[in-house]
């Protein structure tokens, strides 16, 4: 028997000592040359003084009463106190959905659900003046998650994703209806769900509602527009191009203005569509135009040979798109899609322009509302930044996890 090359020559030599361990890391990354060493030290000193100032401010100057005195305002805006149970019901529904996601996918869904459940649980335990019922409903969030988990548990594995989608759509619509309430002409408000005026749905709840609605609706609409733009039917193609380029050419603020002042003119007189729905639809339309271009880019990156392989197998053109090019195109652009979702979430704060009280507007109104709070801008904006960051970071984190999971078998 001949020996292998490694057996003949022995094991390969180890790397030089100065390239391994934490000393190696420091040397390679921070002190690789004289100039980089100087930059490292200068930046270190600057960072130290900035941190020192920050800590000083946190300990001696900052006053968080502007936040802690009005927590409910930041969360639900001026929503009527006697109806707080309605957003809480919506929260329980969403928690159930998270439980379903946990059972269906595990991984990132599990981490996200656990963190969210823990957060709500802690908030519910804060000694804050709150009705027992409202507190109890918050404490029931983990129970709702467990309920969702076990519902998914009893669905056969291969159809869990499908049922998650169906339940998710149902939960979204139910949440919107239960929070905003509705009245039917001639019947009034069924189940005592009195309509809440649009200016009363506010705070973080408003941002989340608009973002959830926009995210879930803009992806399929964006895909449809992208497919239309790639279509060989000239009329369809032209319509999609015109829509996409028109919407992309107009600032979101302008669209929001139009939705408030122009769109209602086209409705019959006795119909009064809530601004909540109008702004949700506007944000969706805006986002789907950008989404369409993302999707088109992702599909253009799929080799034409892929669709040829599909055609050669006898698949119809729509089957080739649905099963071969679209899934690959979407996988190519997960970072772009999530980036779009993140900017959509932040853009929801623009609805202040049509008179809605989102989280940022509540913060601003709080500063000018009471004289003793007028110096607390730093605290308010830091808090707002933190809240937005927590949500956008979660989205980015989940996106990275999904990318890693779907990366299996990448070319």
């Amino acid at each position, binding site marked *: 028997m001949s020996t292998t090359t490694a057996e003949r020559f022995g094991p390969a030599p180890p790397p030089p000592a100065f390239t391994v361990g934490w000393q190696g890391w420091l040397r390679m990354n921070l002190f690789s040359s004289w100039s980089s060493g100087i930059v490292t030290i200068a930046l270190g000193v600057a960072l130290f003084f900035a941190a020192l100032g920050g800590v000083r401010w946190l300990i001696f100057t900052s006053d968080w009463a502007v936040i802690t005195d009005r927590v409910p305002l930041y969360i639900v805006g001026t929503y009527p106190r006697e109806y707080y149970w309605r957003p809480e019901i919506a929260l329980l529904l969403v928690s159930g959905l998270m439980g379903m996601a946990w059972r269906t996918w595990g991984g990132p869904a599990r981490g996200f659900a656990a963190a969210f459940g823990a957060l709500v649980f802690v908030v519910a335990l804060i000694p804050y003046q709150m009705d027992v019922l409202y507190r109890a409903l918050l404490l029931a969030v983990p129970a709702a998650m467990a309920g969702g988990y076990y519902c998914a548990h009893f669905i056969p594995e291969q159809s869990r994703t499908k049922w998650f989608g169906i339940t998710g759509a149902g939960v979204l619509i139910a949440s919107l209806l239960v929070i905003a309430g509705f009245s039917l002409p001639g019947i009034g408000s069924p189940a005592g769900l009195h309509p809440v005026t649009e200016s009363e749905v506010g705070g973080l709840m408003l941002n989340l509602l608009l973002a959830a609605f926009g995210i879930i609706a803009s992806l399929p609409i964006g895909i449809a527009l992208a497919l239309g733009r790639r279509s060989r039917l000239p009329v369809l193609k032209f319509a999609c191009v015109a829509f996409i380029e028109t919407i992309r050419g107009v600032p979101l603020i302008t669209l929001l203005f139009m939705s408030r002042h122009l769109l209602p003119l086209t409705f019959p007189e006795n119909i009064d569509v809530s601004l909540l729905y109008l702004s949700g639809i506007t944000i969706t339309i805006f986002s789907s135009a950008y989404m369409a271009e993302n999707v088109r880019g992702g599909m253009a990156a799929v080799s034409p*040979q892929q669709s040829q*392989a599909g*055609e050669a*197998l*006898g*698949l119809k053109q729509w089957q080739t798109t649905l*099963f071969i090019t679209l*899934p690959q195109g979407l996988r190519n652009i997960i970072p772009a899609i999530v980036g779009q979702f993140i900017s959509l979430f932040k853009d929801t704060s623009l609805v202040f322009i049509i008179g809605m009280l989102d989280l940022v507007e509540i913060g601003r109104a709080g500063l000018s509302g009471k004289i003793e709070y007028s110096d607390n801008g730093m605290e308010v904006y830091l808090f707002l930044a933190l809240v937005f960051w927590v949500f956008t970071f979660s989205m980015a984190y989940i996106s990275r996890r999904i990318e890693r999971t779907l990366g299996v078998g990448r070319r």
Partner: protein
Amino acid sequence: MQDDQPAAANGMSKSDILQLPLEQRDDIIIYEGVHKWFGTFCVLRDINVRIKRGEVVVVFGPSGSGKSTFLRTINRLEQHQRGRIVVDGIEMTNDIRNLDAIRRETGMVFQQFNLFPHMTALSNITLAPMRVRHMPRREAEEAAMQLLERVGIPEQAAKYPAELSGGQQQRVAIARALAMQPQIMLFDEPTSALDPEMIKEVLDVMRELAATGMTMVCVTHEMGFAREVADRMALFDEGMLLETGTPEQIFNNPQEERTKTFLDQIL
């Protein structure tokens, strides 16, 4: 025309026909005066050829000679613009039903494999039978496993293309094409993108396929394979089908000077 008729019309089953010597079998592919242009450039120039049921034809020639385009007109990935093409009795027209029928008759294997990277090997194979032939999932998966065994890699069924070697990917691609139970297999330089160690495993599968009586049209420069397996070889140059003949004739007694010089270059 009598000789345009598929086997069934002559009252013989496919296996009966395959017992006959080549000359007595029916023509499964007929090209008469076929032309094709890309813009003003003539890629196929007056192609006339008849391929018998169960025949293995190796197509070769310099790059840009039109051999790949010729192959791709057989299943209409490319449309011809003049002349007549008949595949297993189906005349190539713009009628979409004819197109579907011809795609069912033919399976194709590409140089770059073109497996679907977002699906496992098994799903790559079951996709078309389930979506085009409406085969139930269980049945399609059983058939796919048999095909994977036939190409020698049943243990790779659950893997994604990126987790397979080039040779394994190409064998999955062959299994995927066979899953539609085609009458004709088209190979477009199936070993050109492979490392030398993997060429043999793909050629072995093709050899076995030829032995089952499959009609095969292979664009390849594997001359050892051609000599051993091909019934006929066809040299393409500048859009023309310059010479056809048995491997014996082509290698030992080529009629065209171009065939001789080309063989000298690649052998």
